[in-house]
């Protein structure tokens, strides 16, 4: 369990429910993520992963409890908090009619960068993510893997201290997955805290140092992956996942 070091994310006694739904999603949830950590949040469909990420990014407001990012209260929703985080949602949340350069120019401006910073970061990111030769082509003509890379580039254009990734490699080929994971590792080496969620558990094994399993709105376990496998006498994250969350279908309606 997390004990020492500066905290990138500190969630204490979190309570939340959707106004349109009677059921409580979270009640008294606690979670800590150390600064500079590669943290994986896993759980079956409907466990509350995306809701928790939305609360961390300020997209949803908690009913009770506190969420702080590097000591800043998310509920204040000020620009300082927003500058700290980069969000890579599962959907291609950008403008398909625009080229990668045009998207980065727009999202860079909204991230608080100036014209020169945007240009420098755009050139850098397109080079790293292998999009240089299609930099001025409309994104809607791209393959799924290329779109994922654009999605990632937009999320990191402002060099966020905490990068939140919701299934960043879903539906991509092996090469793209490899490139994305390598880049995330590179970012982490440079100090970026990664908060990652995915159903690709084999991929997560290689990426995450610290793992939390969530089910029906509760963190059922959290520790380093090595400790968890040892403690539960499992060979892989997938085996651990199934042993703790069961093998029944989850219908997330």
């Amino acid at each position: 369990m997390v004990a020492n070091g500066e905290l990138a994310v500190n969630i204490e006694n979190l309570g939340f429910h959707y106004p349109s739904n009677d059921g409580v999603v979270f009640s008294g949830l606690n979670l800590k993520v150390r600064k500079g950590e590669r943290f994986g949040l896993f759980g079956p469909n409907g466990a509350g992963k995306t809701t928790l990420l939305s609360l961390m990014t300020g997209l949803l407001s908690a009913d009770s409890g506190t969420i702080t990012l590097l000591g800043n209260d998310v509920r204040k929703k000020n620009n300082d908090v927003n500058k700290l985080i980069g969000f890579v949602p599962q959907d291609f949340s950008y403008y398909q009619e625009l080229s990668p350069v045009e998207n980065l120019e727009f999202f860079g401006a909204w991230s608080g960068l100036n014209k020169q910073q945007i240009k420098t970061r755009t050139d850098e990111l397109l080079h790293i993510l292998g999009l240089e030769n299609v930099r001025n082509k409309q994104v809607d003509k791209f393959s799924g893997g290329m779109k994922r890379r654009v999605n990632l580039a937009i999320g990191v254009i402002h060099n966020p201290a905490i990068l939140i990734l919701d299934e960043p490699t879903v539906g991509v080929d092996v090469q793209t997955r490899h490139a994305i994971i390598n880049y995330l590792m590179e970012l982490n080496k440079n100090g970026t805290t990664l908060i990652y969620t995915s159903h690709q558990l084999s991929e997560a094994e290689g990426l995450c140092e610290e793992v939390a399993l969530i089910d029906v709105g509760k963190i059922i376990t959290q520790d380093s992956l090595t400790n968890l496998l040892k403690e539960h006498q499992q060979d892989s994250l997938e085996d651990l996942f199934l042993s703790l969350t069961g093998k029944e279908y989850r219908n997330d309606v």
Partner: protein
Amino acid sequence: MFKLWATIKKDCRVLVRDGIGLSLMFIMPIVLVVVVTDIQNSTFQLINKNKMAILVCNRDTGESGKQLIDAINKIGLFKVYNLPNNQDVKTIADSMKDKDALLSVTIPGDFTQKVKAKAKSVSNKAMVSFGLQADSVQRYTGDVSPLSLYYNPVIQEQLRLSVKGGLQSALQIVESRETLRTLYFAINEKPLPAKLESEMLSNKAAINEIPVSKNGTLRAPNAAQHNVPAWTIFAMFFVIMSLGGSVVREKVSGSFVRLKTLPTNFAVGLLSKQITYVTVTVIQAVVIFTLGIWGFPLMGLPGLNIPLDVFGLLVVTIICGWCAVSYAICVGVFAESHQQSNGFGAISIVILAAIGGLMVPSFAMDTSLKTVANFSPMHWCLQAYYGLFLEGGKLTDVMQYLIPLVLITLVLQLITFLGLKRKNLI
């Protein structure tokens, strides 16, 4: 400022790559304004220049039937074709089809007899009232037998009433002439001199038609003056097809959600959309007005006369565009899909145009519809444009229409804000 500029650039890029949206905003309204102006101009020409074909089946062998045909010819509205006097209804209908005529009149066989009898009766009454001895002819109490007017159902009621009015005027001349002749003969025991008869029947006072304008000019409005402003407003509100869809796409793709995680106020995004699309509506107006001024005369249509207060025209156009854009954003925020936005958008615009007086003038509506018209922003847009284009008014003269329009716009902005708040998008 850099964020706003970057957002405007983004919105412009998204817009110019939306080919269908652009064609709906520019090509469709241009086609609409040309077609509607042409049709209205053709109707005007039909009535005033080309003359409508009318078939006349005269079953009367007397003088009054011939006089009536002569009077119908003199109205100037019709081109008269005479049919044989033994035609039945079916043959008349076939003849109308053959001769491409929408109207036909049948004069009854006893027309002259009845006209004369009525004239005699009126003359006798007049003699008695003068204190003179009347003829001993039996008093006639009936009316002249009615004419039958057959018409193609495609003729609108408005036009049919004009035709009926024209025929009644011709009938009036025939009956008056006969009464005058009979009365004159009864008094003077000699026929009415032709010159006197002509003077008595023909010397009508002329009617001068003078358009009332605020600037004192006497320029008569034409079909372009009526149609171009009306359909320009319609075009402006058609931005909903591109803008409403764009807002929905941003919501559905998650772009709105991502923007919410960034250190910029969402108001920048809304302001950018309004600046971009209000500019588009102004460009629409410039394109359509330019077409009206220079393009219409080349197409044989009456040209558009631009109001003297060009600054007022610009202000009115910007405010109309702002209202149209606010409406589109509002619909986009509440629509759950592109289909919903386009479907509701298109139908609601047609309804707002209908109740706003773009299709049927609001002065012709009944009281309850006139009240409803006040809730259509297009009504106020149209009133403001008509104030400038038709009445020769200035900006100050149309301010009374701009104030309600701005109020409606502010209400739309408030609803948009509440909608975004409720959907947790701001």
